[in-house]
């Protein structure tokens, strides 16, 4: 091919033009990821400054730096306790959970080639809700204070394996997986409703509150658990990102380009389920983040999953942290369920981007 271009200065010029344009687009993606990262750092400061005990941004960042680098010799203060013991665990939980849900959504949408796919679509969230309901109403105490969490986690994971087994027997097409997921979702929702029907008013209230989703359970211990699962899953998923992008062009194309389609689909689905299950187990059902984060990312930087996956993590983190910050401050001292806020904050932003993108196409 290059032989043909020899001696043609116009061709070389055009070739270089195409390369320059691609590199320019690549730089834009990096700029987006960097900007969102900086945005998270700024939002961490703002979120940590807001609350019943107001702090300035300078106090917040000085206290955080003092905690990270004790060698700086910054003095211990009330702010230090408020930030490190109360606000930062909640902020960290929101970021890690938002990132996990964003990545899970990006994976599910990519693997299932369905822009509406998210943890809800596959029944993973419903399974976690059923597990939590059984633990709360059935009084399951095998795992002590972690009974609800572990029951939700195990249920979500078992549901994923069941969906996978059903889909595998039908050929593992994206359509088969979605149909199996929807069937499982209805079944599990029925079980959850049944357990609620049997429960007392207090138990039902506890289940409903759990299902609304909240990061208020955050402690450094719980953050660490969710973080470990995220740090084990997300790098692998980024490693498989280019395969996922190609699978978006269809199974036959992916196979033709040397990808083990079923293997990649199975492993990435399991990791997406792990991420969702860990978040849902601790924080209940937080909708919308998993659906919208990948869309926002793709609208801005396109469909290359090598960037969409980290981008969805960052957007998910910023979205959930923003929503939680608004949820706990807008009607303070009342704290709203974060699930409500993710929709209230996320939908207008999503619609804004969507309309902008449509205009470009029209």
């Amino acid at each position, binding site marked *: *091919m*290059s032989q*043909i*271009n020899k001696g043609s200065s116009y*061709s070389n010029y*055009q*070739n*270089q*033009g*195409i*390369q320059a*344009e*691609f*590199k320019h*687009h690549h730089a834009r993606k990096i700029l987006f990821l960097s900007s969102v990262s900086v945005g998270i750092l700024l939002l961490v400061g703002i979120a940590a400054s807001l609350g019943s005990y107001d702090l300035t941004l300078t106090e917040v960042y000085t206290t955080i730096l003092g905690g990270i680098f004790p060698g700086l010799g910054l003095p211990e203060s009330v702010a230090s306790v408020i930030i490190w013991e109360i606000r930062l665990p909640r902020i960290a939980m929101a970021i890690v959970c938002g990132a996990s849900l964003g990545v899970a959504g990006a994976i599910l*949408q*990519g693997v299932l*080639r369905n*822009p509406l796919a998210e943890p809800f679509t596959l029944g993973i969230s419903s399974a976690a809700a059923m597990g939590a309901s059984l633990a709360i109403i059935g009084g399951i105490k095998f795992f002590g204070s972690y009974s609800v969490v572990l029951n939700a986690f195990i249920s979500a994971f078992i549901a994923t394996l069941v969906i996978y087994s059903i889909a595998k027997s039908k050929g593992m097409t994206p359509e088969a997986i979605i149909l199996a997921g929807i069937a499982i979702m209805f079944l599990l929702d029925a079980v959850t409703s049944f357990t609620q029907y049997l429960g007392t008013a207090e138990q039902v209230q506890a289940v409903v509150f759990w299902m609304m989703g909240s990061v208020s359970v955050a402690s450094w211990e719980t953050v660490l658990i969710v973080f470990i699962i995220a740090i084990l899953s997300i790098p692998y998923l980024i*490693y498989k*990102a*280019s*395969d996922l*992008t*190609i*699978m*978006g*062009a*269809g199974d*036959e*194309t992916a*196979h*033709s*380009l*040397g*990808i*083990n389609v079923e293997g990649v689909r199975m492993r990435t689905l399991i990791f997406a389920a792990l991420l969702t299950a860990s978040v849902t187990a601790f924080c209940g059902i937080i909708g919308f983040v998993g659906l919208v984060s990948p869309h926002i990312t*793709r*609208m801005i930087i*396109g*469909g*290359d*999953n*090598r960037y969409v996956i980290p981008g969805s993590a960052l957007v998910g983190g910023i979205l959930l942290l923003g929503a939680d910050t608004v949820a706990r401050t807008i009607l303070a001292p009342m704290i709203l369920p974060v699930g409500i806020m993710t929709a209230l904050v996320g939908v207008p932003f999503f619609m804004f981007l969507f309309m902008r993108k449509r205009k470009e*196409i029209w």
Partner: protein
Amino acid sequence: MVNVDLKDVCFSYPSADILQDVNFSIGPGEITGLIGPNGSGKSTLIKCMDTILKPRGSILLNGKDILMMDRVDLAKNVGLVPQNGSSAMDSTVFETVLMGRRPHSAWRISEEDINKVADALERLGIGDMAMRDFSSLSGGQKQMVLLARAICQEPEVLLLDEPTSALDIRHQLEVLEIVNHLVKEKNMSAIIAMHDLNLGARYTDSMVMLREGKIFSAGKPIDLYTPDMIKEVYGVTAVVITVLGKPHVVPISPVIYGHFKQKSAQTMGIEEIPA
């Protein structure tokens, strides 16, 4: 340079046999057309040759059975241009073509990959749409992009599954001209499943005519195309003339039964449709 040999290739679904005892060979620098009526097994054979479907028998690439080959090795040797192919959500033309580098490159995109993609786009005259969304392209443009992707794959065997079926006449000629030049220049082998007998005669070196999953006949188009063959395989009355040294099929009428037969004759202004 590569030789492709198909030996006793069979493929069945539980409900039906799709391909039975398909045998033929293709040499380097050759284009072979697969023709036959709908449901004759053309696309199935293309999928078997890319191991998307797993046939019985053997398909040899320079004596090596592709069914035993590693998936990535096979992708380095065999490229597929699918029928009405799609791309990933929100992918640009450049990213779609870049997918063709997957068998050759690791996670990180190299300068060589970028150069090869730019080369392929420029070569097919679609460089100006490199950063456009693939989904916003017309059918003809999409087919060119998928062809560029296959070029980037640098295969020795190119499989094309009805690449011109959704294209206007200009794009049909463009796609097949490019394939023809590529095959001759790089000494590749190409197998094209197609419906258009006349385009097939113009752009292929040999033809394999399939009917009900079996080879009905094979050879050069000039030897293959006869009114009897057209009638027997397609149920169409036709005459075969020679245009620019190539056989050209002019269909007269299909075999129509019932009262439509008389209506068709009236439409054509003749008393009776010839048997």
